[in-house]
Structures are given as C-alpha cells and as structure tokens.
C-alpha cells in the first residue's frame, strides 16, 4: 500500500480563487528571483526594493515605465486578437519591426508633408506592413497547412535582418559616423509629447486601441465568431463560421497592432529607425497576453508591470552590477509560475491509496 497523488480535472474551473492563485504565483516568482539574487551574493530584499523604486518610485521612473509599456501593450493586444482564435502568433516581434520599417519609409520619403498628414500616413503604412507580415503565416497555414508558431517565429528573424539591412545599407544616414541608423526624422514625423512631460500621445493610441478591442469582441459579430472559432473549430464549421477568413483577419489585425507599436517606437521614442528598437517587446507581449488572459484591461496592467520590471532591472544593474539578463529571467519566472498556477485553477489533486 502506498499513498499516491492523483490529478483530476475540475468540473468547473475556479473563479474566485483564481485571483488568489495569480497573486500567489507572482509572490512565488519574486521569491524565486530573490533566491537567485541571494545565491549571487546580492542583498535580495534590498534589490527587490531597488527594482520597484526604479520602476515606479519617481515621476521620471514612472514615465519611463509608461513609455516602455506602450509598445508592449500594443503588441500584446495584437497577439491577444490571434490567441482568441487559438492562432498562436508569436511573430509580434517581426510585425513590430516591419511596422517600424513601414512608418520610417513614409517619414523618410515624404518629409515635406505637414504632421497631420504625415503621421496618419505613417500609421497606415505601419498597419499595412505589419498586417501583411501577419498575413503571410496565415495564408501559409491555410494553403500549405504549415504551423503558424514556427512560421511566425522564423519570420521574426527575417524581419529583424531586413531592418538591419536597411539601416546598414540603403537607409543609412551618411552623417552617422558609421552607426547603423537612418537620419533623424523631421519634427512633423515625430508624435509630440504631452505638455511638459516625457510622455507622448502614443498613450492615447493605446487607450483607443484597447477600447476598440473590447468593443470589437464584446459587441460585434466578428468578435463573437472569433471567440467561437477559438473555442471549438468543429462547431465553428458546423455553424458556417468563415474560419479561414477569420484566421486571415486576426493575423492582419494582430500584425497591424504590432505595426502601430513599431510606428510609435521609431516616431515618438527613438525619432529614427535603428536596430536598438529591437529589444524583445514582441516576446514580452506574449507573456503579457497570457498573464492578462487576453483581457484588454489586464493587458494594460500587465504591460505596465513588465515594462516596469525592465526599467527597474536597469536600475538594479547600476546599483548592484546584476547582469541585464536578470530581467529576462524574472520575466520567465513570472510566466512559469503563473502558467503553473493556471494548472491549479483547472485541476485538483487527490491523495489516494494505491492498491
């Protein structure tokens, strides 16, 4: 006779307790991070405080976190559109890059346009380039039955290398002293700052995108069809939901939203196209979408949290000489603990006796 652990799926997933599970998972991930710091001989408690203060402890820090949250939020909203149909778009990084390229092309090609024409044109170009970059894996999936996870991932590398090619080659600023970057955008191409703050009007784009996302899924037929198609593809076929069309739709929307992030990054934050804009926002966005369970409001909160983590860890680097990769480790730990926590929401353990 031995005691055994058995696992059963719950009849209905936990609702109320899931908030607690989430909180527990976050605490656990922080504890594990602290443990890692301790093993490195760093003062763990103090380090956690530094991260928090570095991210949200001052107006300047909060602004920086918000600025970094913008691209994460838009990319995350994008992947969430696809995830709702259970299309696993992990290509936000590449779609973001292509969006940045599209917006930059407009900025560099039509410098004489006034801002109220130029910026909408840049946004439109970013939507088209990002959207098309999302459409490729959708069409390949539908036509050739390829796996979108692999195709979107591989397209990321192509997009990033294409961006590199442009800034090292044809678009390189002749006065950049050899640095890979385009020339600085004219002021008409730069999304302006809000009043005296460091924040730009891109925040407003995020709010609008979030609200539209919510309305789209809550009140439109397409939103409903995407949800139904994601829940049960056979039932979608039974109900004559145009599944193939929806796959293309969500991938275009997904890519376009990531493209917007690329536009805002080159226009408002960097003011030019350069390889340093590729810092993995598109991957963080996937973590955010999962943490937020594809809910736009939670995506906002989670984007700010993970953007804050990035900013905070930068401070940690300065104060305690912790490697930059520590931020990614913490991000990974958060995702792991939250995913593991999700298991407890859907399953429960039984202690049983083994014959």
């Amino acid at each position: 006779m031995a005691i055994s652990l058995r696992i059963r799926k719950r009849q209905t997933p936990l609702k109320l307790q899931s908030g607690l599970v989430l909180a527990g998972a976050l605490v656990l991930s922080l504890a594990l991070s602290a443990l890692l710091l301790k093993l490195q001989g760093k003062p763990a408690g103090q380090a956690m405080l530094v991260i928090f203060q570095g991210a949200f402890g001052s107006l300047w820090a909060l602004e920086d976190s918000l600025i970094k949250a913008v691209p994460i939020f838009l990319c995350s909203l994008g992947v969430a559109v696809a995830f709702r149909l259970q299309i696993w778009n992990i290509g936000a990084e590449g779609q973001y890059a292509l969006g940045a390229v599209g917006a930059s092309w407009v900025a560099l090609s039509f410098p004489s346009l006034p801002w109220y024409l130029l910026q909408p044109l840049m946004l439109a170009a970013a939507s088209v380039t990002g959207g098309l970059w999302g459409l490729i894996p959708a069409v390949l999936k539908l036509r050739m039955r390829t796996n979108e996870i692999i195709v979107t991932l591989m397209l990321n590398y192509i997009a990033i290398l294409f961006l590199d090619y442009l800034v090292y080659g044809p678009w390189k600023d002749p006065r950049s002293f050899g640095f890979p970057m385009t020339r600085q955008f004219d002021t008409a191409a730069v999304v302006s700052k809000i009043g005296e703050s460091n924040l730009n009007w891109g925040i407003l784009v995020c709010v609008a995108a979030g609200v539209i996302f919510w309305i789209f899924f809550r009140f439109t037929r397409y939103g409903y069809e995407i949800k139904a198609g994601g829940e049960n593809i056979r039932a979608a076929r039974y109900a004559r939901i145009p599944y193939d069309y929806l796959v293309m739709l969500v991938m275009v929307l997904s890519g376009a939203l990531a493209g917007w992030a690329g536009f805002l990054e080159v226009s408002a934050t960097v003011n030019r196209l350069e390889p340093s804009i590729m810092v993995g926002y598109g991957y963080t966005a996937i973590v955010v979408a999962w943490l937020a369970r594809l809910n736009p409001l939670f995506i906002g909160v989670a984007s700010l949290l993970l953007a804050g983590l990035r900013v905070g860890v930068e401070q940690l680097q300065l104060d305690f000489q912790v490697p930059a990769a520590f931020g990614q480790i913490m991000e990974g730990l958060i995702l792991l603990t939250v995913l593991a926590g999700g298991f407890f929401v859907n399953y429960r353990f039984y202690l049983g006796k083994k014959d």
Partner: protein
Amino acid sequence: MSSPHPPLVRLEKISKSFGDVHANRDIVLDIHAGRIKAILGENGAGKSTLMAMLAGQLQPDGGRILINGQPVRFTSTRQAIQAGIGMVYQHFKLVEAMTVAENLFLSQEKGFWLSHRRMMERTRQLAARYHMTIDPAAKIDDLSMGERQRVEILKLLRRQSRVLIFDEPTAVLTPPEIEQLFRALREMSQQGKAIVFISHKLDEVMDVADEIAILRKGRIIDQLDVAEVTSKAELARRMVGKEVLLEVDRRPCKTGNVLLEAENLSGEGLEGVSLQLCRGEILGIVGVAGNGQKSLAEIICGLQPPASGRVRILGSDWKRFYATRTDKKTLSYIPEDRQGLATCLAMNLVENFLLTTRLTFSRGVWLQRQQARSRLQGLTGDFDIQPPNVDATAGQLSGGNLQKLVLAREFFREPRVIVAEQPTQGLDVAATEEVWKLLLAARQNAGILLITGDLAEALALCDRVAVMFGGRIVDTFPTTDSEKVERIGMMMAGLETPGKVAAG
C-alpha cells in the same frame, strides 16, 4: 450457456450510468479461455462501455469482475493489462514514426541499452507463433490498417495477455485483411487465449465466434452458442429490437414540394445514393451506424463536399446553397455529436444559441446579445432546459439538456429542411417523447431527414424509410408497407439486397 471449464473472467451484475443514462445494467457474462465470444449489439447498446470497464478504462458503478474466481478492481488500463486483459481499440495506439519491433517493446524493455537485433528477433518469433506475417523493421507509417492492427495484437501477446478484446476490429479492414484477422483470432483461441469480439455485423459474428451475447439498451438480452443459432434473421431481429416503447399520435401530413434532392451522391463511404424529401414528411434513414449515414449527413449539411453526384437544397445547387448566408427558414442540422459539433462547451448558453442564429441577431456588424439573451430565456422555459440559467456554460448541462438547447436553437430558426441524427440518443423516455412531438409538429412546414439506428423511433415517426447498408440505400418504402417493414432488420444487416427480395 454451458461450458465444462470455469470461466477465466466473470462479470457479475456490472452496471454503469452516465448521468441519467444507464449504459450497462446488471450485466452477467462469462469469458472462457480458448473461446471466441462475440458481443453483438446496436450502436449505443453499451458494448464499448462494457468492454472499457473490463479493460480498466472505466470503473463500474455496481457489480464486480472476477478473474479465475478472484475479484479484481482496475483503476487503469495498466492494471488490466497486468492482470492479462488487453484491448485492441478502433483507433490504434501506435507510435507511427517507429518500427514494429520498437512499438512492441516500448516501455517494456529494462535497462538503458536497447538491442535492436534482439527486439527484431523476438518480434519475429512472436508473430511466427501465431502464424502472423509482419516485418519487424517496418515503420508503422508504411503499414496498412490490417498490419497496424496486427502490431496491436502482437503488443498484447507480447504482454502475455490472456483475454484479448477487439472493438469492432473489422471496421477499418479490407475483406482479405478480415480473413487474415479471423485466422489469427482462431489461432489465438486454439492456443488458449480468450477472445472477445465486439461487432454489429452478423455475418462476421457467425463466421468467427463460438458464443454470442446480444446486448440491447445496456442489458444482455440473450446468450447462445453459435451452433444454436437457427436463423440470421432471428438474430438480426433480436439485435435491433422492434417493440415500440412509446406511442405518438402521427397523423399523416399533406406533403408538398420537394425540398431536398440527392442524385447519385457519392462521398467517403457513400455510393450512389439518391433520395427526395418533400415538405410535410419525415424520411427515415435507418441502418447500422457506419454504413454511410455520417457522410450523407455531412454532405447534405455542408460539412463536406460531395465527391460526385448532385444535391439540391431548397431549389439551389449545393454549392450555391452553401454560398448564401442566412440562418432563418433554411436547413438545420441536429447532429449526433452535440458536445463536439453542435455546441461549444466552454461558452455560455446565449453564445451557444448565437452559433447558428447570429445572423438573425446581427445588425450590420453589431451583434445583439441582449435580444438573443431574452429570446433564449423564453425558450429555456418552452423547452424545459435545466438549469434555466442562460449564463451557465454549455458544459454544465447534462446531455439531455444540451440536446434540448440544440433543438430550441434549431427550431427557433424555423427550418425548412431538418437533418436530425440520432436525436434521442441518450435521452430518457419523457425527453424522447418531447423530441418526437417536436419533430412531428415541425413537418408542417419542413421536410425532415431522420437518421437513426433505433428502428422503433423510425417506425414511430417516419412516413417513409430508406434502409442503408454498405454506403448504399437498399430500399426506400413507406412505413405502411408492413411486408417490407418486417424485413428491415435483414436489410440493415446486409442480408437482403433489392435484387433478392423474394428470399423473405
């Protein structure tokens, strides 16, 4: 039923229910070494449930299983296999990228190093012992269905199984492969294995079995030796059952114009089927499951295109009909698979209601959830859906209530053509009667294609029936033709073709 030896396995008053549905009731069954036992029964009779309990997949609610007189309890298939009971499933459980020998010794080899040569050799020996031919080095991917099945059998023999259960093993095989399988079954039984053979095909059972147990509606209604069988027709009648449990008032309805027309229709498992359905009638498609009904329903309902032949629905060609988007006064499909096809279990009832009514509740791109919600609230009352909470998920409903939800939704669409597939399967008597009444009432404005394996249901409801066997329609006749109705069981069993009607 008598046998000189004590049984190897004895089932004592085994019962199993799923919700309100009794899948098995008080099953008593003996399985002897060296004998081939056929479990004969209609689809949904409870054969698979019974065998799943013997193979450790399911646990009985009541009764016990004895092996050599010792009671046993299996909580997993692993335990059943250790006790010598193994099953060959309809869907093979093989690693397709690996070889025959590797599949055989998967998880069975001890130690770290594998000897491929030894695995091959032992596979060859095992196959030779039962006179089976198989290439131990072949990849599963490259094998035919019959060969894959042989690998499954060898897996069980390799684990020293004493009882081998076959769940409709001939369904995926070609006729020569069936012959080979039967030879292998006889060989194994001669070498002392107990074979249990689940089937609904009379010919096969008569061909290979020593004993037959007939299962109907979860109960064993008869057990006999094959030698005692006097006529196949009698066996067919017993298997299908014909007593009408319910009486519904079926007044003839004036039939109108043709709503659905299939001409020489072929598809997967379907060959040259023609039929016509008029307004005001219920046309029954009866037959043992797996004789082409699934394909017929899927083609008519737009889930697969016809391979050849023509379908006209409400005056439009198939392609044109399915290019038009509308959900009122058109075709409704009430599929057998309520959970996987007709509903999304994770969505709430309103969202499930909207699945096929979303165009009705749309204004431009806007979906009017509130209107759908209040509409459904009314319908939950009319259809007595329990619990009447439209915000619950469909997964929280019992099978019967889920079916009521599907019916409420589909009848709300005021369909002109209804394709109903086993609409009362798993429902209790009261719910069955409700569904029957609904279908009868609906034919005022619609033509109904009722696909059912339940002959009592077909006879109670249908104006005409078409009997399917082997992908073809054997015969179509009005249910008032008592002479032909008598022979439905034989037609379903493939014992009678239109050509040799006189055989009676």
